[in-house]
């Protein structure tokens, strides 16, 4: 059954959808949209390094995404404003990545697939990585759930309850790095943060509690994957952008309903 490229694509997309739906809610609550963008753009640099040193693409993207997350927290602790730091890092990570990839002849050919994803080329081992990473992200978030939600509502309340907000930020950085790694084959570096933010933002209107918002975001992300793949086959459009476009369509449609 897994021999069919379409089945593999659907499974890969759904693997990303469940993790992105839940993690995306935290990205929205903690106003980390731009942070997600920075780590996602850094993935291109990770791809270039992986190919140059003959490493797994997944290992390379996780490592660079984590490095960028650390760099951001280091620069902000030195007193730079968060949005300035992210503006510098998001674009320079992408620029360095594109420069680095030009030195790797094999990657130049598939540059577009790393920028916009290539879900229809997902293989069996990719599926293992994607679902493994997805479970790891969900496990991490479930383990820290109460603390993460408290720290997202208010850091002082969290501290008074004995929660260290720095630890929760680290958890978020690790989860984001993992997500970037599993998403790069599916929607590509440039559209990863869209998969985080759009389903979560759509779910906000229909949810009264954080948990319900996370569940609804998962469903919307999964529906976007299915709709995007269907459109891609029917209209012969690129799969990754079609998935994000479907998510955006759901978002627009949700605006019709009254907000919760």
């Amino acid at each position: 059954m897994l021999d069919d490229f379409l089945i593999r694509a659907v499974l890969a997309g759904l693997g990303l959808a469940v993790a992105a739906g839940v993690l995306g809610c935290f990205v929205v609550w903690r106003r980390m949209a731009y942070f997600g963008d920075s780590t996602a753009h850094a993935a291109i640099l990770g791809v270039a390094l992986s190919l140059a040193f003959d490493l797994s693409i997944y290992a390379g993207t996780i490592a660079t995404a984590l490095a960028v997350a650390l760099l951001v927290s280091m620069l902000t602790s030195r007193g730079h404003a968060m949005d300035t730091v992210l503006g510098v890092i998001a674009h320079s990570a992408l620029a360095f990545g594109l420069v680095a990839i030009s030195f790797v002849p094999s990657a130049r050919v598939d540059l577009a697939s790393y920028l916009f994803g290539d879900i229809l080329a997902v293989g069996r081992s990719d599926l293992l990585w994607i679902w493994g990473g997805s479970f790891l992200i969900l496990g991490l978030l479930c383990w820290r759930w109460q603390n993460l939600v408290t720290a997202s509502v208010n850091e002082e309340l969290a501290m008074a309850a004995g929660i260290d907000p720095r630890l929760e930020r680290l958890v978020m950085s690790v989860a984001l790095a993992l997500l970037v790694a599993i998403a790069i084959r599916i929607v590509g570096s440039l559209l990863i943060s869209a998969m985080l933010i759009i389903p979560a933002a759509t779910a906000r209107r229909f949810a009264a509690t954080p948990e319900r918002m996370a569940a609804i975001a998962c469903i919307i992300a999964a529906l976007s994957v299915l709709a995007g793949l269907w459109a891609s086959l029917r209209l012969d459009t690129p799969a990754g952008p079609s998935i994000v476009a479907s998510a955006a369509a759901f978002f627009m449609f949700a605006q019709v309903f009254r907000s919760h």
Partner: protein
Amino acid sequence: MTALIASEKLSINRPGTADPVLRDVDFHIAPGEIVTVVGPNGSGKSSLIRALLGHMPLIAGRIDRRAGLRIGYVPQRVQLDRSIPMTVRRFLSLPRWVGGQVAALALARTGVAGLEARQLTELSGGQFQRVLLARALLHDPHLLVLDEPTQGLDQPGIVAFYQLIEEVRRQTGAAVLMVSHDLLVVMGASDRVICLNGHVCCEGTPQYVGNAPEYRALFGADSKGTLALYRHHHDHDHDSHHDCAHHGE
């Protein structure tokens, strides 16, 4: 009576700098006591609270907390974000899950019974402050710590809130440590007032501090009259909530 928290020669700096915020502060609070910290902006009131809670590194001195001390905390100005959906009920279960009855009881105790299903962002400032107080009361604290709990409330709301604090103390026996800008109202509701300005300027009963030259130098001499007004009101109109609305007008 042994103190719940006591500090000795406590000194702290502004975070990340060598600027002193507090120097040589001796502080203590006894079980069931209501202590209010007043002082101008930048006098180190909130820093004292954070240090006592263990959120700030000490430069010198020591802090002793009674073993097993449970603290309920209402931080200064909790900014709510519309991006996170949060019912009152769910909020009370952060970060520790509490049962429905416990939650309902806490809400009833602070005068906001039945608000469980409401979104936090839909509450008025006064309701939200009471929900925060209910959350702080959930785990039977020995000590309630309130950092400027009435910010953003109007005058009647402020008076009603401090009456609630006294009521809560009477019911639960919890000690209360407050930081406040509402000098005159809050002082009347306190057992002891500490006037802070980088160090302890003066300390004692509300009447004593209100008359102290150090206090009047910081806040102006005419403040005393309003204090008397509050005490007068407080003595005679204890059970009439409507009269509170006229206070200070």
